[in-house]
């Protein structure tokens, strides 16, 4: 298994990465809506207080101010929980950022059911769908804290709107000392295989690797892809997977509709239909519980991914 024992929350990357980039001379500013401790944005604010603008609990204002700063040449970061941004400020993201392509980067934490005890209202399951619906946004869901740091840097160094989704709990780090470099539009192949491809994003990348291990015990060779770049997707790698393995399973902590499952299905339906199945949330909201309990409860686990793979293999 590629995973190491170290765990770390992806949300901890934001503040330190922004501070590093600002030290390196990037013209970064950060607008905050009273969740700077939780998103780690405060770490940037502590080092660069004159570049850190709290607006209170006001996400619409946060995005509007960011767009204005960006229009004046700043690299404007803003952050909140994924339920509140894009949740509270979708129109601002659409019209003040997406349409004019202002250089705004929204980094939202607490994605998915792994948000845990806070319950349904706090668990973002639509944020990727919302952000993928605005065509000018690059959308990234890093698999671990190493990739989160790199994705934030890529966002800072790439002109245009970005959405990056991070997570609350400490999840396994898979890219420690791996020499991995995140590239927008490239999906990392973490495991070779020719029978089926498991495509996952976020914390479920580790689960997909574990599922592949289980399947290997049954003689099934599963390829594993980290689909951290949800827009642009890695079309070439996806089509190669469909061609070479002939069966696809996606896995995400998000509604399947409009999320990773949706974009994979749309792409393959047009270009290379193969048997597909989707692991993710459907038709219901989350609830309170510890994050690992909730992954079990909603069947977002390695056994569930392996099971889904067996089902799709039977249709191959």
């Amino acid at each position, binding site marked *: 298994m590629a995973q190491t024992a170290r765990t770390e929350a992806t949300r901890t990357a934001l503040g330190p990465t922004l501070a590093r980039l600002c030290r390196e001379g990037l013209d970064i500013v950060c607008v905050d809506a009273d969740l700077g401790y939780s998103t780690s944005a405060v770490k940037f604010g502590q080092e660069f207080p004159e570049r850190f603008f709290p607006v*209170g609990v006001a996400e619409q204002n946060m995005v509007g101010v960011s767009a204005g700063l960006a229009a004046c040449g700043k690299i404007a970061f803003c952050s909140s929980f994924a339920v509140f941004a894009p949740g509270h400020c979708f129109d601002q993201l659409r019209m003040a950022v997406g349409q004019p392509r202002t250089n705004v980067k929204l980094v939202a934490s607490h994605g998915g059911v792994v948000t845990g005890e806070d319950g349904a209202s706090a668990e973002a399951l639509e944020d990727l769908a919302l952000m993928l619906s605005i065509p000018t946004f690059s959308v990234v869901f890093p698999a671990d804290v190493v990739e989160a740091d790199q994705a934030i840097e890529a966002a800072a160094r790439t002109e245009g709107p970005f959405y990056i989704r991070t997570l609350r709990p400490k999840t396994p780090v898979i890219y420690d000392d791996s020499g991995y470099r995140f590239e927008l539009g490239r999906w990392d192949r973490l495991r070779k295989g020719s029978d089926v491809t498991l495509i996952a994003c976020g914390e479920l990348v580790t689960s997909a690797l574990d599922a592949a291990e289980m399947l290997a015990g049954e003689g099934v060779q599963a390829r594993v892809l980290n689909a951290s770049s949800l827009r642009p997707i890695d079309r070439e790698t996806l089509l190669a997977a469909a061609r070479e393995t002939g069966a696809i399973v996606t896995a995400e902590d998000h509604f399947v509709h409009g999320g990773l499952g949706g974009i994979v299905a749309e792409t393959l339906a047009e270009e290379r239909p193969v048997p597909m199945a989707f692991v993710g949330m459907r038709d219901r909201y989350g609830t309170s519980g510890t994050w690992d309990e909730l992954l079990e409860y909603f069947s977002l686990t390695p056994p569930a991914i392996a099971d889904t793979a067996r089902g799709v293999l039977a249709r191959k």
Partner: protein
Amino acid sequence: MARAQTVSIDELKSIAKRIRRHIVEMTANANSGHPGGSLSSVEIATALYFRVMRHDPQNPLWPDRDRFIVSKGHATPMVYSTMAEAGYFPVEDLMTFRKLGGKLQGHTVMQKPPGVEMSAGALGMGLSFSLGHALAGRLDGRDYHVFCLLSDGDCQEGQTWEAAMASAHHRAENLIAMVDRNHIQNDGFSDYQRFPAGNGSRPQRPGGWVLKDGHTANIMNLEPLEDKWKAFGWSTQHIDGHDLEAIIDALEQAKAHTGGPSVVICETIKGKGVSFMENNPDFHGKAPSPEQLKQALKELAD
């Protein structure tokens, strides 16, 4: 049930103390949750459920009930504890708070359990929802009142002021807002109206700036808050939010007010009743440890 029976102020005080004990116990048991803003609104909730509101725990959907609509949906420990004490469900259920399979989620879910008026958790939405209840009541010729609890953070969301403007425009005289004005939010102090810069266990917030009067403004200054409500067409009162008699008087006065909506700004102390939580931003969204729970229960003993 008709209007709540008259409960003495002394009895109300002991109910409030029980609610405070539930709040610290259930958050400690869940090892998460929001004790600070729950403790600051205990007297408000106690006055409502045990004196001011017309409601029936046996019939939570009674169309003529007064509504208690909590916009600050993270204050579930206060909401659930008060409802349990009022008889909506067994007190033992409080120990299922935030647990998988329990009925009591971390943030409120509409009618789960029955009597919870609104799904909340995203700040800023409660006053609009309350106005909807108020307008429906008037349309249906019902004489209930709608009590909406807002926080500092709620008053920073634009939607609250959209609702404030609309409530006055529609002369919603059956609508009463209460602001749990504890001056503390998620990342620290809203302002330094009451606190010298640097107070609290966290370092001074980034982005703070000095106001003309020498106070350091912090996350977002809300003052002059009462003037803002006035300017939006509301009748206002400004009281000590831990003084049960003052709360009851203010709410009765607000109920009697005609011609438009009323707001009662309740000056409160976040974490009220537990020494190490009082005015401490750390306990906005953090549970007490087992040792801290013991200390808290000692301080909250009868």
